[in-house]
């Protein structure tokens, strides 16, 4: 096909999403915002897998992407449970104000 989108454009979009997710991870202090940044980074990796799978006759990236989706959902469920438990413990979820007891 002649009118295809080049692969490197997908990879650039993934790089943009990854960079935004990483800067959210270190910019925000609310724990839920940080989880959203982690989700963005996970989705950037998934976009790369699927873009490479377009070139693959065996479509292995697509099938790995399905499993990445499930792992991302599990991570989100457990992390939100931890955030809710931390909110019960400390009455806030501000990551800059958590102190470890010694």
């Amino acid at each position: 096909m002649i009118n295809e989108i080049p692969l490197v454009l997908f990879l650039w979009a993934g790089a943009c999403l990854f960079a935004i997710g990483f800067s959210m991870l270190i910019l925000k202090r609310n724990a839920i915002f940080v989880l959203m940044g982690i989700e963005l980074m996970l989705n950037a990796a998934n976009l790369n897998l699927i873009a490479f799978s377009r070139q693959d006759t065996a479509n292995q990236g697509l099938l790995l992407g399905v499993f990445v989706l499930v792992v991302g959902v599990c991570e989100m469920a457990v992390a939100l449970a931890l955030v809710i438990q931390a909110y019960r413990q400390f009455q806030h979820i501000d990551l800059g104000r958590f102190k470890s007891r010694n």
Partner: protein
Amino acid sequence: MTPLMLSFLALVGITCGSALVMLWTKNILHAALAMFMTMLGLAGLYVLAYADVMAVSHLMIYVGGVLILILFGIMLTNQNSRGDKDQNNLVTEESSRVWPVLIGLAIFVGLVFILARGNFSGVEIADPNSKLSFVGISLLTEYAIPFELVGIYLLIALIGSTYIAKHHD
């Protein structure tokens, strides 16, 4: 400029623009709305990469599941710092903006530089048709054991998260 390319650029604009809105805003509800737009744009990008199965399952899982989970998390940890109960004014704290944005920009420029040096030409597109039956057949034959394992993993994660989230007195 083909229509395919134009739609790709529009979808990348929606995706990365909404992600930038997520980065910029301090209101966590606006960030959840922007995350919805990001997931819609990503599903469109998956369609353009000929992965229609992935696009549909991504929409179902992220818009229908993860985003609702995040909204529940926002609701349950609402601190209402401003004190006005009428507005959805859930403004959160953040650190200084200079260094994180600079580090993110450096990562983006570095990745683009590395990817621009790679040679991805000469590989042809495998199959532009729907991959639904292919994914179904492979998940039940070649990838049957990982499929079952990921089901068990999902069950363990759900039981564990309900145990973590309950009241421990």
